[in-house]
């Protein structure tokens, strides 16, 4: 939930002297005068446990995924057998995946298209709904700002599963939504919301991930200099022109950050789909991975799908990391 608001500081760019700490022999002499010095290993020693942790539990797992995706399959039990030596890696899992996606009768292809469509629709809806809300809270909330902010943050503290469970209750055939629609004669009979409807899944994704968008937009809009808006208004721009010509361009970074932080988890989502639809008619890439993990002999396919997903999402992920790094550098100046 830490948005671009609280990014870490990367190493300073070359040429920027920055605040130097006593380092090396010269520095040691300099601070020896001051009475105390830090040994050269002092700061790295703090980072070592975290580094070891990340190597063993973050880098190593991906090597295992590669070894399985490019590995062999046990001829008897059909379980994946990892091949640790990269020289012997074999891409047959990817050929199989390719056939299942693009080949004749490729039954995985639609899931990729569907994932893309649902995520694009849901992120766009998130942006359209969240922008006015974040805009209002930063510009017009006044003294109620703190309270409104608490209300906007509230969904973060409600378990995701509970929020989906709430909608399952409401959308059941005899649930409140159907009863309301039937009693107001908008529908002649209950609509099967939970039986594989793309609309339900997309709206479920919006409901699930919109708090991230609100927070990212709030953080960005809160940094927009109010004096610029006042200047625009003073110079005769209408409300709408001020918004289009000043506010909107200044919040471009926040919009991009918001889109990335909502879309990335949506791409890996499978549980929203399982709870609100459960039908293969709406299954997404996340469901494919989950199904492959759950069925015996499909471990290799799961590994291949995970790698494909990582490659497809590399651009937004790296873009986000770069932009937070840049924001931190600007803040540090």
């Amino acid at each position, binding site marked *: 939930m*830490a948005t671009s608001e609280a990014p*870490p*500081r*990367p*190493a300073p760019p070359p040429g920027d002297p920055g*605040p130097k700490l006593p380092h090396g022999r010269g520095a040691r002499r300099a601070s020896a005068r*001051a009475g*105390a010095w*830090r*040994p050269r290993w002092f*700061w*790295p020693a*703090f*980072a070592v*446990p*975290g580094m070891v*942790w*990340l190597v063993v*539990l*973050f*880098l190593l*797992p991906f090597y*295992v995924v590669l070894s399985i995706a490019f590995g062999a399959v046990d001829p008897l039990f059909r379980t994946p057998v*990892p091949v640790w030596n990269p020289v012997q890696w074999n891409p047959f899992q990817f050929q199989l995946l390719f056939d299942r996606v693009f080949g004749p009768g490729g039954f995985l292809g639609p899931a990729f298209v569907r994932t893309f469509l649902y995520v694009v629709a849901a992120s766009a809806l998130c942006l359209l709904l969240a922008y006015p*809300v974040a805009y209002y809270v930063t510009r*017009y909330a006044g003294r109620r*700002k*703190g309270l*409104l*902010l608490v*209300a906007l*943050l*509230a*969904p973060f*503290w409600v*378990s*995701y*599963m*509970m*929020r989906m*469970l*709430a909608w399952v*209750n*409401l959308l059941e055939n*005899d649930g409140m939504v159907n009863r309301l629609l039937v009693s107001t004669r908008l529908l002649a009979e209950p609509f099967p919301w939970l039986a594989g409807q793309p609309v339900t899944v997309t709206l479920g994704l919006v*409901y699930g991930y919109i*708090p991230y968008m609100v927070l990212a937009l709030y953080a960005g809009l809160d940094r927009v200099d109010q004096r610029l808006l006042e200047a625009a208004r003073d110079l005769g721009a*209408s409300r709408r022109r001020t918004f289009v010509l000043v506010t909107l361009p200044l919040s471009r970074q926040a919009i991009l950050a918001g889109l990335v*932080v909502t879309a990335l*988890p949506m791409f*890996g989502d499978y549980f929203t789909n399982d*709870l609100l639809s459960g039908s293969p008619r709406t299954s997404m890439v996340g469901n494919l*991975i989950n199904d492959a*993990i759950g069925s015996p002999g499909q471990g290799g396919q799961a590994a291949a799908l*995970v790698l494909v997903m990582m490659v497809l*999402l590399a651009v937004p992920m790296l873009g986000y*990391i770069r932009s937070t*790094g840049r924001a*931190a550098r600007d*803040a540090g100046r």
Partner: protein
Amino acid sequence: MRRWLTDPWRKPRLLEALVWGYLAWSVLPVAIAVWFSFNSGRSRSSWQGFSLRWYWEDPVLSVWHDPDLQRALLHSLRLAVLTTLVAVPLGVAFAIGLDRWRGRLAAGFNFQMLLSFVLPEIILAVALLFLFTNLLKAVQLGTTAQLLGLVTFQLSYPVIICRARLLSIGNEYEEAAMDLGASPVKALRHVLLPLLSPAIFASAVLVFADVIDDFVLVRYLSADAASEPMSVKIYNSARSSPTPALNALATIMLFSSLLAIALGFLVYRRLTRGERSQESTVEGFAAQI
């Protein structure tokens, strides 16, 4: 009407209505689910009167009397406490190290840490599952594997939050302490750590609340029904055999994380007393999150 529309300083009524609509949409479904956890009947959509049947009155199906639900509740809390205890110290040390050490290696690890933050959880979950079932077979699936996975996934929160705070602290206070004769360790303990405490605390609250909510990682790394926490229980039964006991479980979960947040907020306010005005405490706490 026309005059109202063209008034350049009119109050943004439409926007205001939209905000209230949004808040209602985001809160009402959950509020209704909480409300039905007190239903005396089996239904989760028609109200049959108030009771505590699904909390403890029902001798078989209530949360209190169903050992499965109870175990799930305790397991969620256990994972949240253990993960916070491991991830926060590890992350704080990592943040201090990365922030002060500035090497190429540090930059590389900073990148890895950020990558773990943006990576969709299912990718890390599958990768860790394969690690524990193929290479590090000594690690049993279940609580240990879940703890290791959760710490990896949550590590970025304390690091990101503490580094932002370190950026605003700077190193002058520490240098001053050392010029006055403090050893590096003493300067760290008596100057830097107290200054960092609000960030450490905020990240602890965040990690705790996030782990209670975690689903993808804990589900893949669980061994059997005994190591399935509340979120997995809700997932398993939401579409199959739902009684309001499930709503009751979710309600308990909701109130336990709300309690953690409220306590966290109060302590945060104490820790940052004198630093910021009362008004912006909420915003400061929110910004940390």
